[in-house]
């Protein structure tokens, strides 16, 4: 039984319809073209609908149909490696069907119904047992690197009356039947639907204990994010937000990566689509695309679908979390999402509170970030969703509403600076404005896995950078002559850290990824050399003599010379550097003896 009605008023993406009995949040199909939309408010028999596609040439009086379900996504095998739009329409398939541009009113199934998947039922699961949401029915090897666990949908529970034997099934085939408490038989398939605005349930939250390793030194070593953590990357245009997110998508030790291009450039998604298939996951050795999914709402697509896109992304992320995976979701950019919210609210005539944003901006943002976390799943152990949102503040001003609200919600803040980007110091993450609330948790992991001195060395580097900032201020007032030799050596040391550790080119084939071991070895080497130099200066060696040493230039470059599995060579180089400093010491000691 479908509900039918008509269009009353068209105001851009906001359409008023007359459709008695329609529910808030319900999906509707409007007009001759059959454009999809979502009811956002009700008044009597009238409903306001936000439309995911352009409403050009749609007329009052055209028909409307209520679809009786909220905006939902299809969850099942076939997601990985795919690219979907903001309401989960499969873009590759639409390209084949409809060509270069996305036509209106087209809505193919999100997941392919033809493909066959080899389903292996869970051995211990016998018919006539009680099952409930999240119980694992079996599994499908979705790609070489992703084992896709087929779960009882969260809203189903009852007696398992039948489960299919191992074999090949398409998505439309029934793989299990469950008899619910009221006697209804639910036929379960390899996929199910879930409404995107409703967080998926889990047993309970679990605290995060492990850092997400991204292979990026300034992130992992200085401002770590935990698996299940919430992070933000704010920065002015061109500072490197997208690059940071792409790097995390490429190199982090997550099982699944969901990348949501929310109101950003089409070419940036093409970049991922083109490069990921040929890049190897450093942990599994498999193609990165096998564990990656893209949600693409490019900036020129209708803004209402942009608002939906991040919910589509996070719901898929939760679905893989429920299978016990560690998922990373990247949203570029949450500011564009907030702007979509603002645009719709403006059209509805709602009262703006700050810079045109509606009063509910802060609560929507925090509810969204709250869907990140590490949880105990129903049947698949622990799983996590780490959520990293880019923020694009107007004019690069971090005091604007989206940045400031986000800052209150997240634990890790990777602040990008225009000054650093202008000097081509990449990643342009400012070590003063950035923070991580989880350094001590991360430290436990680093101390266990890599080196007991991690936290100490990290602290030394940061305090050296802070001293550097102070001293540079003095230099800029009165010139370098005012500094003592020891102070000038600090400037050299800080420059070493900046160039040799903090700067990391995403474009350099070696430097793009740094294993935790390499990260620590680099940092420790540079600090050791710095300490040695400081001793020499105390002995009276002139700073000039040290800073002109060719070995220093080599130290700045060694991040690009030795990759993560050439640490022995890096260690050998380190010894050589240490020796050359020692030989200066003995030279000086001798000279000292001669003169005395």
């Amino acid at each position, binding site marked *: 039984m479908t509900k039918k009605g008509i269009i*009353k*008023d*068209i*105001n*851009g993406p906001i359409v*008023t319809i007359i459709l008695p009995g329609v529910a808030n949040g319900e999906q509707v199909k409007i007009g001759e073209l059959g454009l999809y939309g979502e009811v956002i408010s009700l008044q009597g028999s009238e409903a306001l609908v936000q439309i995911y596609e*352009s409403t*050009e*040439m*749609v*007329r*009052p*009086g055209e028909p409307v149909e209520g679809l009786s379900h909220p905006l939902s996504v299809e969850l099942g095998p076939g997601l990985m490696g795919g*690219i979907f739009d903001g309401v989960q329409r499969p*873009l*590759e398939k*639409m*390209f084949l069907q409809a*060509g*270069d*541009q*996305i*036509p209106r009113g087209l809505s193919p199934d999100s997941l392919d119904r033809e493909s066959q998947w080899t389903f292996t039922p869970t051995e211990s699961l016998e018919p006539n047992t009680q099952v409930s949401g999240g119980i694992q029915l079996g599994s499908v090897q979705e790609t070489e690197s992703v084992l896709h666990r087929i779960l009882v949908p969260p809203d189903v529970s009852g007696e398992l009356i039948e489960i299919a034997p191992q074999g090949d099934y398409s998505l439309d085939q029934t793989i299990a039947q469950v008899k619910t408490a009221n006697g209804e038989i639910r036929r379960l398939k390899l996929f199910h639907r879930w409404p995107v605005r409703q967080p998926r349930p889990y047993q309970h939250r679990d605290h995060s204990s492990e850092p997400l390793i991204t292979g990026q030194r300034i992130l992992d070593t200085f401002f770590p994010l935990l698996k299940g953590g919430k992070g933000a990357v704010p920065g*002015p*245009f*061109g500072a490197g937000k997208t690059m940071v997110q792409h790097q995390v998508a490429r190199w982090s030790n997550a099982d699944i990566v969901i990348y949501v291009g929310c109101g950003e*450039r*089409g*070419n940036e998604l*093409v*970049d991922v689509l*083109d490069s990921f298939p040929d890049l190897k996951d450093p942990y599994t050795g498999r193609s990165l695309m096998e564990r990656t999914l893209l949600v*693409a709402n*490019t*900036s*020129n*697509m209708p*803004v209402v679908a942009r608002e939906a896109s991040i919910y589509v992304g996070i719901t898929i992320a939760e679905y893989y979390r429920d299978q016990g995976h560690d998922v990373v979701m990247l949203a570029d950019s949450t500011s*564009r999402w907030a*702007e979509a919210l*603002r*645009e719709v609210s*403006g059209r509805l005539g709602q009262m*703006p509170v700050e*810079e*045109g944003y509606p009063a509910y901006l802060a609560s929507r943002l925090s509810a969204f970030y709250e869907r990140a976390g590490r949880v105990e799943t129903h049947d698949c152990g622990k799983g996590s969703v780490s959520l990293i949102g880019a923020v*694009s503040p*107007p*004019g*690069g001003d971090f005091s604007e509403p989206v940045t400031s609200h986000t800052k209150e919600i997240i634990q890790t803040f990777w602040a990008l600076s225009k000054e650093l980007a*202008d*000097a*081509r*110091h990449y990643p342009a993450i400012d070590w003063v404005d950035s923070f991580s609330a989880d350094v001590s948790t991360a430290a436990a992991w680093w101390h266990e896995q890599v080196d007991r001195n991690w936290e100490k060395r990290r602290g030394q580097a940061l305090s050296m950078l802070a001293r550097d900032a102070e001293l540079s201020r003095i230099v*800029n*007032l009165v*010139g370098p002559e005012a500094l003592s030799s020891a102070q000038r050596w600090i400037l050299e040391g800080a420059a070493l850290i900046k160039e040799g550790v903090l700067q990391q080119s995403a474009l350099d084939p070696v430097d793009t990824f740094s294993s935790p071991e390499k990260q620590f070895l680099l940092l420790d080497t540079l600090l050791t050399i710095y300490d040695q130099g400081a001793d020499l200066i105390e002995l009276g060696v002139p700073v000039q003599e040290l800073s002109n040493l060719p070995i220093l*230039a080599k130290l*700045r*470059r060694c991040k690009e010379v030795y990759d993560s599995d050439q640490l022995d060579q890096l260690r050998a180089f380190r010894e050589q550097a240490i020796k050359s400093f020692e030989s200066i010491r003995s030279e000086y000691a001798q000279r000292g003896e001669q003169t005395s």
Partner: protein
Amino acid sequence: MSAKEYRTVSSAQGGLLTVSQVPGIAFGDRVEVRDSQGRKRNGQVIRSSSIEVLIQVFEGTDHLDLESTWVRFLDTPLEISLSPEILGRVFDGLGEPKDGRPPVVSRLHRGINANAFNPAARTYPKEFIQTGISTIDGLNSLVRGQKLPIFSASGLPHNRLAAQIVRQAKLPDEESHFSIVFAAMGVSYSDARFFQEEFASSGVLGNVVMFINMADDPPVERLTLPRMALTAAEYLAFDLDRHVLVVMTDMTHYAEALREVATAKGDVPARKGYPGYLYSDLTEIYERSGRIKDRHGSITLVPVLSMPSDDITHPIPDLTGYITEGQIVLSRELHNQGVYPPVHISPSLSRLMKDGIGKDFTREDHPHVSNQLYALYARALETRNLASIIGADELSARDQRYLEFADAFEKRFVAQGEDEDRSIVETLNLAWELLSLLPTTALTRVTETEMAKYHRHAGSELQQPEQKEPLA
């Protein structure tokens, strides 16, 4: 199709007309308005309900009265008529001829609000375009299919720079094959003439389509004009397989027109009175550039905008920077020092450069050289700053060399003649000449191999500068 005509205007205010009792009018429909004297104006439906319809009148609503105004709904969205004959022609913001010649007759009409390109249909732009301008080619390379704006300000030579790009742009190993689409919004007569004469004198007129809206033409047409122009560009690129270079000037006038209209409609302002959807609106324009799978042609976009009060954080340049694939920023300071083109490299950026340069594209050292110049110039500017406080004499010998580098960089690398068309190899060689002003230990962004090959004094810090090689 029979167009419907009504005389039920119930209000006329601030460029907007309300018409009552007109059932079933399409949102976005084109409208013709006739006043009491029978003079025509153009409009578009911006809100449509079963009770009344709101129309935006492009020429404004002044002198319209409620009784004798006729409104005709054309039952078609804004369209442009397309054929190869558009080349060499001049149109206004509604696609009507502005060159006194008859309209283009064609069966092919296209709506100017295209559906978004499917990201899965795009291919990543990679082909290096040589503009002959060192600061662009060497440091902020443009590739086919990129959108790279020029951020300028009043009184700076952005028009001359844009014209030089149009004259010189080509793939390094091909003769120029760009067709030009020129879109001018709210420009002065002298600016419009400048470009027309430019195109005429470089003999490309027959390969240019112009869309012109003068400063005294209706501002609302500035909103449709770039969409007309891009629809024409898409036709040239994807129907006729041409590589199209679209120059749009001045996007600031475009945004101001949008603000004017938004204010009249009562839209909630976000920053500086600009509507919250300025970003989305601009992307509808800029995202139409690019390369498409299995299509031979391409659309490269070079919009020009002036930064109000030279402020790069003003919403117009700011939002543009968030959309485009980089920006070329002009500096008043360099301009005042007589440097042409006054490109300030620090805030300039090309995001698509990384895949279009280097071995197999330009030269293997290009990425590192570019990076190195950036890093040195940033450092040199700091030194210059310091010198202005403590005096240049107080600087260390090393810092003195940075000062020398900054001056040489601006005078020899940034500055070039308006007719000087430097090949990418010339640009890179020039870059090495400048890098050679500094000792090899100061160059950590280039590799040792590159230094051995290109640095003038590699191997020996004490070696005297060799005689300068003549430029190839």
